């Protein structure tokens, strides 16, 4: 199991209870939710809430979230939660977010510290000539409460950059699901440029904002904070969720060859059946995860780099363009050309 060093699973206790879970609990209590009902099924007890250093598993956090969403029964929950999670109270790492030189540095910090800032949905930052793109990869349980987590994650990034710039930034937000009824929450918390029914959940911002120098955090203090933050991240016992780890491994392998299950299992230091069991524990399968990687890679190549179908097919190790079109339609419900048209619109 040595290859799975510093990787957390659905049942690894890594989420500090007094951070994001506490933010959700506070939010629910402020709205008059009964604490017993909120904690039902989480295997958490009231007297544990104040225990210093207590950590819960992603599974417990999901259960808490399910309860909170059901009991609060208000579409603003995800947005209010998102408002409260960044920069958080993680010591030096939060300080680094607060004092980032540029937005780019803050977003980099967000992705490297994903295990802290975003343990269930890990952000990925990709740059091209014109834009910086953020999208999210499931770490432990694909698709579960996805909309809630995406709403919260985007709200958190939007609010953080607003705090850094002391003004709203022109983020464009795109969502993979149809427009929900509570559109006013999106307007309020994510600004004006919002689109639904897109191929993936992502937000982007023109590059000049990423490198625009922010005033605070110059000199020795800033350097020290950065060093401390780096040290803190290096000492983390876990840095990646299992599915995120697998995603990155598949993505890297895909650049060289078609990733085969046996090879990937060997690289993870386990048997094929061991990998299967682990995937099943995370409510998914090898094929689903591979398709996810190929889908998101294809979307990036088509949308952000304007690659042709032939080129994308070759890069994904799919025989020919026709085959790729079929796969793509299965993943996204759209033909590649429809996606291109939608993207430019």
């Amino acid at each position: 199991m040595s290859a799975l060093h510093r990787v957390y699973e659905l049942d690894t206790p890594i989420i500090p209870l007094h951070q994001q879970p506490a933010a959700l609990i506070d939010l629910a209590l402020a709205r008059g939710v009964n604490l017993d009902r909120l904690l039902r099924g989480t295997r958490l007890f009231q007297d544990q809430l104040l225990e210093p250093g207590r950590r819960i598993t992603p599974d417990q956090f999901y259960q808490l979230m399910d309860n909170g969403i059901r009991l609060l029964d208000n579409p603003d929950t995800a947005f209010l939660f998102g408002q409260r999670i960044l920069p958080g109270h993680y010591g030096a790492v939060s300080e680094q977010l607060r004092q980032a030189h540029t937005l780019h540095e803050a977003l980099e910090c967000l992705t490297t510290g994903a295990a802290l800032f975003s343990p269930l949905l890990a952000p990925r930052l990709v740059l091209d000539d014109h834009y910086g793109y953020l999208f999210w990869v499931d770490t432990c349980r694909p698709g579960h409460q996805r909309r809630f987590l995406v709403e919260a994650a985007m709200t958190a990034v939007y609010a953080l950059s607003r705090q850094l710039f002391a003004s709203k930034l022109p983020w464009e937000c795109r969502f993979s699901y149809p427009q929900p009824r509570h559109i006013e929450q999106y307007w309020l918390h994510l600004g004006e440029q919002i689109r639904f029914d897109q191929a993936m959940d992502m937000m982007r911002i023109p590059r000049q904002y990423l490198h625009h120098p922010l005033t605070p955090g110059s000199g020795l203090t800033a350097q020290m904070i950065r060093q401390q933050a780096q040290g803190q991240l290096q000492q983390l016992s876990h840095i990646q969720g299992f599915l995120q780890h697998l995603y990155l491994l598949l993505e890297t392998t895909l650049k060289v060859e078609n990733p085969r299950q046996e090879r990937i299992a060997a690289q993870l230091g386990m048997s094929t059946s061991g990998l299967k069991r682990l995937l099943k524990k995370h409510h998914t399968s090898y094929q689903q995860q591979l398709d996810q990687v190929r889908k998101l890679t294809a979307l990036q190549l088509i949308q952000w780099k304007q690659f042709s179908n032939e080129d994308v097919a070759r890069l994904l190790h799919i025989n020919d363009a026709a085959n790729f079109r079929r796969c793509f339609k299965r993943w996204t419900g759209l033909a590649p050309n429809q996606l291109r048209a939608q993207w430019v619109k």
Partner: protein
Amino acid sequence: MKTLLQLHAMKLGALFLLANAALVAFLSAGDFKPLELWSWSDIIGEGGTALLALAWIILVLKSRPAGLVTQLLSLGLGCLFFSWWVDTLDEFIRLPASVQWDHWLESIPMPVGMLLLTLGIFHWHHEQLAINQQMVKREKAFREHRLFDPVTPLGGAEYLKQHLDLALVEARQQRLPLAVVILDIDDFNRINHQHGFQEGDAVLRALTQLLLLNLRTHDLIFRLAGDRFVMLLPNTGEQQATTMAQALKSAVDHFAYHNQQNGERIPLTCCSALVVAKDENSAHLMERLHLALAHAKQPPRLQRA
């Protein structure tokens, strides 16, 4: 459940004692019917009704503050329960033909209970009229408590959409203008960050009262989301609506809100926008309203970066 028992120990205790007394009286005067004489449909029908009456009593006691209406409703329901309870008992216990009191036990509490219940509902009606008077400017023509806002005593976004749909139809039928004003507090996130989210909620509640005071009786106000309030102004043209929006804005700008903890003044300013309804649905109007607000807010620093 414990608090319910504590609060209404007398009422529930009396009901329990009476029900038991009836049971004891039946047992001492009569004897058990053999199983083959039990009429299951009667047992389910009468026993079930008695249980439902008990459930109503508990719901009424749990959901209402004490007072005349609650007293009448629970007494009336108590009588009904008692009558149905006695009715259920004679399904199990046979009384000799000489016994007459069981008919009295069964038939007297019923009309008395009905009378008390009717009186209770009559007073409830008046109580509701008084509450409606307090809900003026927040709802009109219909109520849906599931759409109430959890933070302020106003309706939320969904409530607004349903009222807006009604108002649009009404305005079209009567050929009267309908104006919709939106108000957004400047830099509300700063208040949340500096003073905490609880203080932010308190600010919203205070603003609700302030805005309610500044509206006419036939206007309606809702909390759209976060720090955004929307007001429906029926029979109001653009010019008049602009004047009203400015008045609301200056009311907020001059509002001396004091921090709950140390009484420190938190200055508030806001931004407003309005649209006049055309031939459109509520979703389209809300989108126009939102764009008008975005235009009005246009942060000056955005272009600089």
